[in-house]
């Protein structure tokens, strides 16, 4: 009888001890698909791979920070460029996971696709421990991306009109070369100069390479940069037209949009005028 009572007390004590640890465990967890990331394991990975740029405290002040011309992300501020969520909101765990694997073009952030899914999920869990925002705010609801309509010349032409009407050219330049009249004045949230995306030289965007990614970029905006969200300005079908037109500005990157655009006289002349003798990256543009 006495033994049974002792056992009951021990179970009760064990349960009481386990509760807070369960809560702590859940707080440091993220879920990406079937993978559960743990901040404890992520911490070890962070101090192996990330601290050189992002710093020991996640504030972007790593020992290399001063030497990078796009400063490393400040995880304490919890402002993220690549999201599927509306502007101003926190990204989803999957957004962070995808950013880690993809890396950021034209910055020092490489893609970490060579790490396992578990490792990337663990790192996401740890990155989320740097900012109190993750405790006070919830990630936004991912925006709905409607099915891409069929590609047509009308769609490209309409996208071109929107490019002018929405004044995209002011930053990205009339030919999408990132040399618009406002380009030299732009700064990011770190007060650092930032250059608009140059469509003529790039094939990948900051947040992906597909039409779907491009759609999301201007419907969610790139928080922390001057690139705003156009979600309240244009309708989804207009956004797809803009996507189709922007693809034609990527004159070094083969795409159905570019092929269709070049079948017109206007398009062929535009693309021919854009092709110059090479790029500093050595990628070269065939004449």
């Amino acid at each position, binding site marked *: 009888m006495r033994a049974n009572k002792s056992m009951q007390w021990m179970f009760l004590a064990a349960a009481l001890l386990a509760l807070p640890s369960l809560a702590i465990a859940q707080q440091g967890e993220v879920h990406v698909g079937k993978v559960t990331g743990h901040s404890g394991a992520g911490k070890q990975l962070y*101090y192996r791979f990330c601290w*050189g*740029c992002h710093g020991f405290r996640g504030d972007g002040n790593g*020992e290399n920070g001063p030497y990078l011309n796009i400063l490393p992300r400040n995880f304490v501020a919890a402002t993220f460029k690549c999201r599927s969520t509306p502007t101003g909101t926190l990204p989803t765990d999957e957004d962070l996971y995808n950013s880690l694997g993809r890396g950021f073009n*034209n910055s020092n952030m*490489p893609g970490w696709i060579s790490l*396992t899914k578990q490792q990337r999920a663990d790192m996401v869990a740890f990155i989320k421990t740097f900012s109190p925002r993750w405790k006070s705010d919830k990630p936004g609801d991912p925006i709905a991306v409607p099915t891409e309509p069929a590609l047509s010349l009308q769609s490209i032409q309409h996208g071109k009109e929107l490019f002018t009407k929405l004044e995209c050219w002011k930053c990205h330049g009339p030919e999408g070369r990132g040399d618009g009249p406002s380009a030299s004045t732009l700064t990011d949230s770190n007060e650092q100069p930032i250059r608009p995306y140059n469509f003529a030289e790039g094939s990948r965007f900051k947040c992906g390479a597909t039409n779907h990614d491009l759609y999301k970029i201007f419907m969610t905006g790139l928080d922390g940069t001057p690139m705003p969200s156009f979600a309240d300005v244009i309708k989804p079908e207009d956004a797809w037209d803009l996507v189709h037109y922007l693809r034609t500005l990527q004159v070094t990157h083969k795409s159905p949009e570019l092929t269709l655009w070049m079948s017109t006289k206007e398009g062929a002349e535009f693309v021919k005028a854009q092709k110059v003798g090479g790029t500093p*990256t050595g*990628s070269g543009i065939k004449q």
Partner: protein
Amino acid sequence: MFHWASASMKRRMPWLASLLVCGFLVLAFLLVDSRSASALPIPAGKVYAIPAFARKYGMPCSACHEAWPKLNNFGQLFKDNGYQMGNDRDAPIFQQPAYWPVSFRMTPHWHRVSVDRADIFNPATDSTTEGRLTTHGFDLSGMDILTAGTLAKNISFLLVPAAESDAVFGFEAANVRFSNLLKSSWLNIKVGKFELDNMISEKRIMTLSDFGGYQVYHFQPATEFSSDGSFTPFYTFGMGDNQIGAELSGHSKNDYTRYSAALLSSNDGSVGVPNGHGYDTYLTLSQAFEAGSLGLQRVGAFAYIGRAPTYLATSSLLADGFGQKSFYRAGFFGFWYLKKLDFMTMYTRGADNVFLGTGTPSFSPLPAGAQGPIWNAGFIETHLTVNPQFILVNRYELIRMSRQALPVTPGVFEPGVSVPSSDFGDIDALVFGYRYYPFMSSRVGFAIHNEFSTVRQRGGTWLLPGGSGKDLTNNSLFIGFDFIF
């Protein structure tokens, strides 16, 4: 084959001196500022010496290396991409004009080397006796000058002029690589002198002591030494040696799947085509797979099919090898991760043609009963990566002769005629130690390295003039300061 002790070794020294020096070095280790990286970030802008890639990309050594020089999968992918991160910041044009892609590595050290059952000549008595020779002292390693990087997008280079510890220079590696041909990571071509791909890398070995090298990569049966008693190898080949040739390689986007096929000159990486017109082939394939929180596991297979001449024709202008005979080394390897504990395993089967195995020119008759020698070899190397700054290393390696080239006559070794036992030449090797990186930065690398190694060869003393036929057992203690900047 392991390295033979130098002839300059002195008579057995008292242990007291070794102990005193060891004690002094241990004290030095303890006095090194060992605060952890998280507590001691290196102030930005205060460091000037910079390893080439860390300087270029601003990443700590631990990003690419499990513990340098051993690569992790991220570092392997970077290498397989032609030293490119793939974020459009790889081409030299993006670097500061002052950027120079050069690093230097060297390891001042103290070591104690002991060779068992050596023939010791004593000039005082004009007599030779068999015994143990031990020597110790401060020393230098060789020096590597590591230059590597991109010449343009998808064109990269590696150049490693390296000096032996006595400052004799050579080109350890020199190659140019064309990456992502046809915009595919599956098509890359490298030409020049390079390490064979996709195996446990000898160039990134975690052990540094005198007998701490991979025995399996350089083993050749004892019967391949010349039959004239000079005991010089008839031909030399080491899978761990950099070879000269061209390599086609490829990998998946995340580097989980890798392959390479190389066509190489049959001269073990020597310049000047000393053996002429022979070509070897090396093939390898590996696949990695995820095992949840345990980490990334990898298994692979490799095969080296080579040819070596059995005699040389020489002129004042050129030498060429003739009577070429074949050999092969083939096997499997695996990287097994259990979180912080990992194992590297390798099995190799080696075989040489009977002419190579007996050191017989192809125009000469073979010794009676001669056969092509065959052996099996393997090792298991264990790492416990406590954290990116501290790693424990252990390796056990064995080589077993499966078939001797010459008939066995128990207790009798007669070069070119017979061997004394069926296990003649078998090797057992054990090495253990640790590497401690007192600080971590993206500018320099520094490791305190402490290690002990021992190796035993069955009947090894037969290979010494007047040897008794007993096993040869050598060992080494190594305490070094491994730095790269």
